[in-house]
């Protein structure tokens, strides 16, 4: 009976399928763009920003899109040198000069325009600084601007920065953290409402691309500004396509439904991307390192020392019990390196010859024995005064890699008679517990900007107490060396100081520095002139291009 019913419905069903197919095949609009500045580049992005207003977001995608919409006065070059000003590339500022030791004067490019036609002026620069440093805006970049006393306008195209003190990265601080904002559009918006301001969802910038549309939970689209004063961008249209997970993002690139995935993260993804004939895989320095942080304060009462990790020798023993090289090899293959300290491969102070604690389980066991941590009751776990050598490793459930590492660490600690329990919890809980100090150990990741000064000071000195020095590590000798390194005027002078500082820290073992990822990106082979700047993969997107003879259907589409 059912088959009879199906037989009767078959003709209409067939007609429907034919119609849908005809619609899909026949109604597609064929584009007409065939020149040198055509092209559509789809980035398979993970996550979606809340706003595109630069001071209100530290989100990675917002930053990538912001690179195309809002210019800085100048930017770091491929050398990533943050000392002095000689390696910086001019953007909004045509030129600059020092007017005394604490005053920096920028001359804006008179050709620069906001995309609504208004000229970019020094008033915009002054407004931007005031906004970034206003507590009501709650900008994550505010602490990084603390050494700039004021920004004023001398005339419509001249902005004057005055600093509180003299130091080698004055120029870097002046230009790197702020994207200049349109004062005429943002002045009327109350500062404590910037995070929810409509401007953040429909921004007007001065960069190489104009904002077109934002489809929530789907995509952001930009189109090249053909009148951009620093030269027309090579690719006409940029689309960030949002996916909630890495695997789908990688699949989209492999299935030729997206053109770029800037981080492949796992060896498996890299192999799959390499097998896809239409993809090229690029390597560039990563900006993230991951470590096991030892909390030196009691999780129950932060005024008291931690019963295990306050002891430097125990920390050293635990660090020596971890075979970091083997862990990297087994979990990440060629995609990561063992960091020589708290740094990513992005930092110029990276030096594999920096002295680190060796992998030496025999020595680790000797240290623990010498300090009274022995297996008195024969249960396989060392103990002292009735307290077992046992602790928890806090790890976010969202990170497969960190969870995998937690298991590997648990096993390595077990081998020397140390019991580690894994607490895999949501990211929000990891964040709350690390900030409040209610943890024993945690596997954390830190992202570096190109300067070692701010990141290392924030995470590993007393300045980071209550901030991101969650383990509350403190060594006055380390701080003294960091202070000297930060004030060194050249890389040659700074390098040995940084080295000495990192070696001091390594000897104290405030954590185990596990891996620093190299970034591997998959890009469609039709894209030419692909360049990645390690601190921001999208910084040079405007120079990428697609030659006319390599255009595919989606490149030619006209709206």
């Amino acid at each position, binding site marked *: *009976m059912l088959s009879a019913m199906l037989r009767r419905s078959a003709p209409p069903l067939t007609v429907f399928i034919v119609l849908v197919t005809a619609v899909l095949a026949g109604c597609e609009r064929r584009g007409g763009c065939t020149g040198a500045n055509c092209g559509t580049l789809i980035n398979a992005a993970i996550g979606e920003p809340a706003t595109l207003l630069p001071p209100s977001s530290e989100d990675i995608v917002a930053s990538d899109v912001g690179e195309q919409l809002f210019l800085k006065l100048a930017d770091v070059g491929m050398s990533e040198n943050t000392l002095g000003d000689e390696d910086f590339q001019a953007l909004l500022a045509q030129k600059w000069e020092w007017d005394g030791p604490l005053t920096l004067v920028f001359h804006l490019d008179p050709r620069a325009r906001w995309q609504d036609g208004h000229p970019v002026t020094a008033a915009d620069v002054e407004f931007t600084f005031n906004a970034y440093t206003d507590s009501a805006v*709650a900008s994550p970049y505010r602490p990084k601007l603390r050494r700039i006393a004021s920004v004023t306008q001398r005339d419509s195209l001249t902005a004057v920065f005055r600093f509180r003190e003299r130091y080698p990265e004055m120029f870097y601080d002046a230009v790197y953290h702020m994207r200049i904002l349109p004062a005429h559009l943002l002045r009327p918006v109350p500062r404590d409402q910037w995070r929810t301001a409509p401007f953040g969802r429909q921004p007007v910038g001065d960069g190489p691309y104009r904002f077109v549309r934002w489809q929530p939970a789907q995509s952001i689209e930009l189109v090249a500004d053909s009148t951009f004063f620093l030269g027309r961008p090579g690719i006409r249209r940029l689309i960030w396509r949002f996916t909630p997970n890495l695997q*789908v993002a990688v699949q989209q690139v492999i299935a030729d439904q997206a053109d770029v995935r800037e981080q492949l993260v796992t060896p498996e993804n890299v192999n799959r991307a390499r097998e896809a004939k239409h993809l090229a895989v690029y390597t560039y320095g990563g900006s993230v390192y991951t470590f096991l942080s030892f909390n030196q304060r009691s999780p129950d009462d932060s005024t008291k020392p931690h019963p295990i990790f306050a002891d430097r020798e125990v920390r050293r023993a635990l660090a020596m019990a971890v075979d970091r090289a083997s862990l990297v090899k087994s979990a990440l293959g060629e995609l990561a390196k063992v960091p020589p300290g708290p740094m990513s491969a992005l930092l110029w102070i990276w030096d594999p010859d920096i002295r680190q604690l060796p992998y030496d389980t025999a020595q680790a066991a000797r240290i623990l024995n010498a300090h009274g941590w022995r297996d008195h009751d024969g249960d396989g776990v060392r103990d002292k005064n009735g307290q077992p050598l046992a602790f928890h490793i806090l790890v976010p459930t969202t990170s497969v890699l960190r969870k995998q590492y937690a298991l590997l660490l648990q096993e390595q600690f077990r081998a020397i008679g140390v019991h580690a329990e894994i607490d895999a919890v949501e990211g929000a809980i990891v*964040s709350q517990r690390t900030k409040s100090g209610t943890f024993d150990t945690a596997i*954390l990741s830190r992202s570096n900007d190109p300067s070692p000064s701010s990141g290392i000071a924030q995470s590993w000195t007393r300045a980071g107490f209550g901030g991101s020095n969650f383990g509350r590590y403190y060594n006055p000798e380390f701080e003294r060396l960091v202070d000297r390194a930060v004030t060194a005027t050249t890389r040659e002078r700074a390098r040995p100081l940084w080295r000495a500082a990192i070696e001091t820290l390594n000897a104290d073992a405030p954590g185990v520095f596990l891996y620093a990822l190299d970034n591997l990106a998959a890009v469609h082979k039709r894209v030419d002139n692909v360049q990645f700047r390690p601190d921001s993969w999208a910084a040079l997107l405007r120079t990428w291009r697609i030659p006319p003879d390599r255009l595919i259907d989606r490149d030619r589409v006209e709206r």
Partner: protein
Amino acid sequence: MGAAWLLRRLVASIAIIFAVVTFVFILIHVAPGRPCPENLDPAVCNELNRQFGLDRSIPEQYWRYLVALAHGNLGYSFADGRPVRAVIAGTIPFTFQLAGAALLLDFLLGLGLGISQAVRVNRLPDVVLGNVTLFIYSLPTFWLALLLLLVFGEKLRWFPVGGASDPVLCSVVNSLYCVGDRLWHTVLPAFTLGLVGAAGTARFQRAAMLEVATQDYVRTARAKGVPERRVVLRHQLRNALLSFITRFGLAFPFLLTGAVLIEWIFAWPGMGRLAFNAILSRDYPLVTATALIASTVVVAGNLLADILLGIADPRLRVRADTDLVPTA
């Protein structure tokens, strides 16, 4: 099933929704974790907490929430930076699109298979279909989704890998092609949800049809010489529809709010994915609002199922009416 019955159900429904919202509001606020990313400076976090009113006590926040809710204001999403109403409104068309397609597949296929099995009970087609539906029903939905994505999206490239539309041509539906494109993007997620649902529906429907098949009125109809097709459709199916309607009432809200994994895997911009992200980022206003909508849909689904049951089975109508008569 008169107006009084409906009024009583509506009042009970509002009370249930209010209780759910209160429960979720308290639960999410006392749950560990705060809406502040790991690497954000604590001073910045404190300022944001002040701006979003999170520095006030929970009872005060709750009172302010209720007052705002009474004015139709669901608040601002912390993570999205837009009014919650706008955020949710953006997901509803996609949620209905996916849920509608999945429900259609679930019930058309499930009903057809269930009937087909019941009329051939214990014969080869019934045995084969029974095992096939059991196999499909046993599949973890997320696994099936990943498999379909890999085979039909990545390898064969017949269907899009995630998303709800072609971002190049159809970020806005402005042509017939884009209507087709939207449908094309719906196929894999709807098929994943609908297929597993249909396997369950088929098994329910088969059992219901077989239960009814032994009833006196079915035997009488056959004895009177009523044609088999009429017996099946008029006598057996209509009475077996009661379990189907109940299942529909439960499945509808589940598909609307419970397709979290499928929306996650297929990057579908629906309400399940939104709610999941909101929970992870501790976006309190959005979590509470999605709970409000989910509970409303569940209550409405059940109410709808009860009404449909009353229409399908007059005996239930009588029972419901007499229920309202006060007993001495």
